[in-house]
């Protein structure tokens, strides 16, 4: 299988076999093989550039890094495509390659609409497989998308790849493996599920002296079960994950493994504040549980309850649009609203510098 590659791709929409689905002309020049060999690890460089999204739960708590591969774990019904579209428009990337697998037709229209309204369509290439297209084409989508992204990256472009939804891709693989009478390993999925997913996700790369590929992929969890083979294997491959739950990015479980490559350079209170706020939020959750069981609340519990509410409303809500620095300042405000200095467990030097005057 091969795919045509040139600047002419930008703004175009194709299907899983590389044919146009936007009434434009077919492209046959400069064909590139898809599913090529993996990048030599010594030719990669350490991911160390932050990708700002202005979503505090991402920028502050789980920073997205150029060349990272991150799935968005979600259950059906969550606004994951909306989140993806928002990141596509707000993130700094030269080229966006969108792959839709088993997409509902209205979701396809939504992406087209949102990206053209946001003015991002002209730097976007879409490969779309809708739910009613042949299964084999679904399996081709990630390879097509990543082959194109890789070519752009080799031309010194920072490429953002958006894939939705990888569970449909895995299911397509399962369908075909079973038809071929392969021995299934776990819930009917083929034994090489991990290797297959990995060979796609590992295309995310920051080339030494050239561009980069960053991959954000939606993985819906059937039955909200993170131990289902698809999200489970994905989690072991990717560099963290975002959990989308109740319309918010959950701080527990969500993780950007590469954040420490960048969050030491943003502001010196970033790491300590991030850790302290999450720890407090975790204590808040415990207290909330106690409260719901009808126990009386101690003074400490009252503080935690106040904190949890502020944190959820001012930080976690997906509608919040703040730069990282604004979000950090807000974090200190919230802590100072609720606690005494020594209750936070933050190093004293940082408290002396950043604790807001009251």
């Amino acid at each position, binding site marked *: 299988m091969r795919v045509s590659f040139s600047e002419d791709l930008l703004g175009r929409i194709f299907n899983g076999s590389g044919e146009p689905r936007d009434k434009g002309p077919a492209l046959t020049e400069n064909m590139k093989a898809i*599913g*090529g*060999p*993996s*990048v*030599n*690890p*010594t*030719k*990669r*460089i*350490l991911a160390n550039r932050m990708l700002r999204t202005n979503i505090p739960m991402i920028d502050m708590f789980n920073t997205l890094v150029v*060349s990272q591969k991150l799935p968005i774990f979600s259950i059906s019904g969550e606004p994951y495509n909306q989140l993806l579209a928002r990141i596509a428009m707000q993130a700094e990337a030269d080229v966006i390659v969108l792959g839709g697998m088993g997409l509902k037709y209205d979701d396809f229209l939504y992406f087209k609409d949102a990206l053209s309204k946001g003015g991002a369509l002209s730097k976007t290439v879409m490969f779309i497989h809708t739910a009613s297209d042949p299964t084999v084409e679904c399996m081709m989508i990630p390879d097509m998308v990543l082959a194109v992204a890789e070519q752009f990256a080799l031309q010194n472009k920072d490429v953002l790849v958006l894939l939705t939804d990888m569970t449909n891709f895995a299911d397509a693989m399962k369908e075909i493996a079973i038809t071929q009478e*392969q*021995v299934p*390993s*776990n819930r009917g999925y*083929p*034994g*090489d599920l*991990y*290797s297959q997913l*990995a*060979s796609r*996700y*590992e*295309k995310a*790369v920051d080339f030494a002296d050239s561009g980069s590929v960053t991959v954000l992929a939606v993985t819906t969890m059937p039955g909200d079960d993170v*131990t289902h*083979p698809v999200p*489970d294997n994905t*989690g*072991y491959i990717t*560099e*963290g*994950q975002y959990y989308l739950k109740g319309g918010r990015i959950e701080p*527990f*479980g969500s*993780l950007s*493994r*590469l954040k*420490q*490559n960048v969050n030491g350079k943003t502001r010196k209170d970033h*790491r300590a504040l991030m*850790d302290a706020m999450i*720890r407090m939020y*975790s204590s808040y959750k415990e207290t909330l*549980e*106690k409260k719901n*069981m009808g*126990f*009386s609340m*101690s003074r*400490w*519990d009252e503080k935690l309850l106040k904190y949890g509410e502020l944190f959820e409303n001012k930080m976690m809500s997906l509608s919040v649009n703040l730069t990282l620095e604004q979000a950090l300042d807000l974090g200190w405000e919230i802590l100072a609203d609720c606690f005494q200095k*020594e*209750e936070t*467990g933050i*190093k*004293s030097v940082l408290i002396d510098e950043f604790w807001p005057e009251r």
Partner: protein
Amino acid sequence: MTENTGKVISVNGNLISVEFKGAVSMNEICYVKVDDTPLKSEVIRIRGNVAQIQVYEMTNGIKCGDAVEFTGEMLSAELGPGLLGQIYDGLQNPLPVLAEQAGWFLERGIYANGLNTEKKWEFTPTATVGDVVRAGEYVGTVPEGSFLHKIFVPFYLLGSYTVKSIVEKGEYTLKQTVAVLTDERGCEIPLTMSFKWPVKRAVKCYSERLAPIETMETKVRLVDSFFPVAKGGTYCTPGPFGAGKTVLQHTTSKYADVDIVIIAACGERAGEVVETLTEFPELIDPKTNRSLMERTIIICNTSSMPVASREASVYTSVTLAEYYRQMGLHVLLLADSTSRWAQALREMSGRLEEIPGEEAFPAYLESYIAAFYERAGYVRLPDGSTGSVTIGGTVSPAGGNFEEPVTQATLKVVGAFHGLSRERSDARKYPAIDPLISWSKYTSVIDSEKLQFCKSILHHGYEIGSMMKVVGEEGTSLLDYITYLKSEMLDAVYLQQNSFDLVDANCSTMRQRYVTDKLVRVLGSNYSIQNKDDARSFFNNMRQKFIDWNYIEFKNEDFNKIESEIDKLYCKANGELDKLAEKLLKDGE
């Protein structure tokens, strides 16, 4: 070498059936010719005149009728000076050399020599003409980094040999003959400074295996004090994704008190290898004052690289570890992750249409895992010195459930279990080793009774904590509540450690003993505290002091200052040692 060829009769993924004429042996290496590109493969099953081979490369484009050449050799590692500091793939191809030849991508069919054959090494002979030598004894040395690299009589030579001639001290390449041996029948065997050894066979050129009793410092408090690992021992680190397995191994590879670290990145992320590659050359090993990279070998077969060489990478790395052990060095092999290796076995087993065992893993999974971990050990070498291979493997259980076959098979054969828990990692507690489920059979760096005391506080605190979830804080007695706070504090200031802080991440044994004593005093005391709010605030203050203490260099001025603040706080609350703690501290003196 006799030309032995065959032709492809069927292809299924990376499993190929080949019809051959001559003699073919199990695990023999052969090459499949695709459009003149030779693809390295290994024979894994022979039936009649059909061999089934696994290809170490992507197999697209292989056709029925393609020629296959058998080499008569097993999959081997090249052993000799120049291994340290290298970055290999699972088949011991140096990745930087491949990058020079092929550019950005790992194009298939390109192989390179594991060792640089051009480079000259300064050889000093130690054997003299007429000496009788055996496999595993050495005839000379070359300096490699900060070590004296011994030039061995190859491990595969059986019986005893006489040194017929040996070169003068001087510079030689790996291709040049440095000595000639004669066997009992007078046949001459020329020796170079390197030789090959089949990776799937354990090196056994030692006089005896000793019990692993010497603790290997990792500078991680939770490991060294609570769940220690011994030199020559084995341990495993299972945990769900995102629990910090790799970070923990990464810190261990930096600070562990061993001579050589071999990192086997087996089926994991390429980014993690890049991190090591970028970081290690910059870091200085305090023991030798040289770059950390000079004591490290990386075997990297990341998840997107072909699955068959993933299986090989584990064996290649343990072979290199054994080789350096033979020089009387202490080697730590970190394999991340053994589950990916097991999955590689499962993939092949599926293609071979073997009867699947639990979760479709092959039935021989357990014996393979046991055989791998058994290659660790503390040994006495023929010259009387000792060396060790310590193996630490991560396990990535599906769904974070430890009841799965790979974790269970591993737990049977290791000496320490560091189980990571999702709850601890979600609460950002690093390292996320769960103290309630983990265990170790090795000796701790701190006194065993003090350890027992700390563990009992943790267990007791956990019990009270779970009870408090049911009966609430007001249903808990002040005494129990204080015990609970004590266990929380122990967890926060001792079990947890900041791996990004240079001082905190590198906590020496001396310091661990010192801090433990202080903790036993604080935790083993009764205080004149009247209510729960006071108790909470006292332990919060205490915790804060200990955390600040952790970030300061051991025994410098600030360290002593904070210590006196801790003592002051202790006195202010009228701390009084209870009997048990008093006895523990007295015994320690």
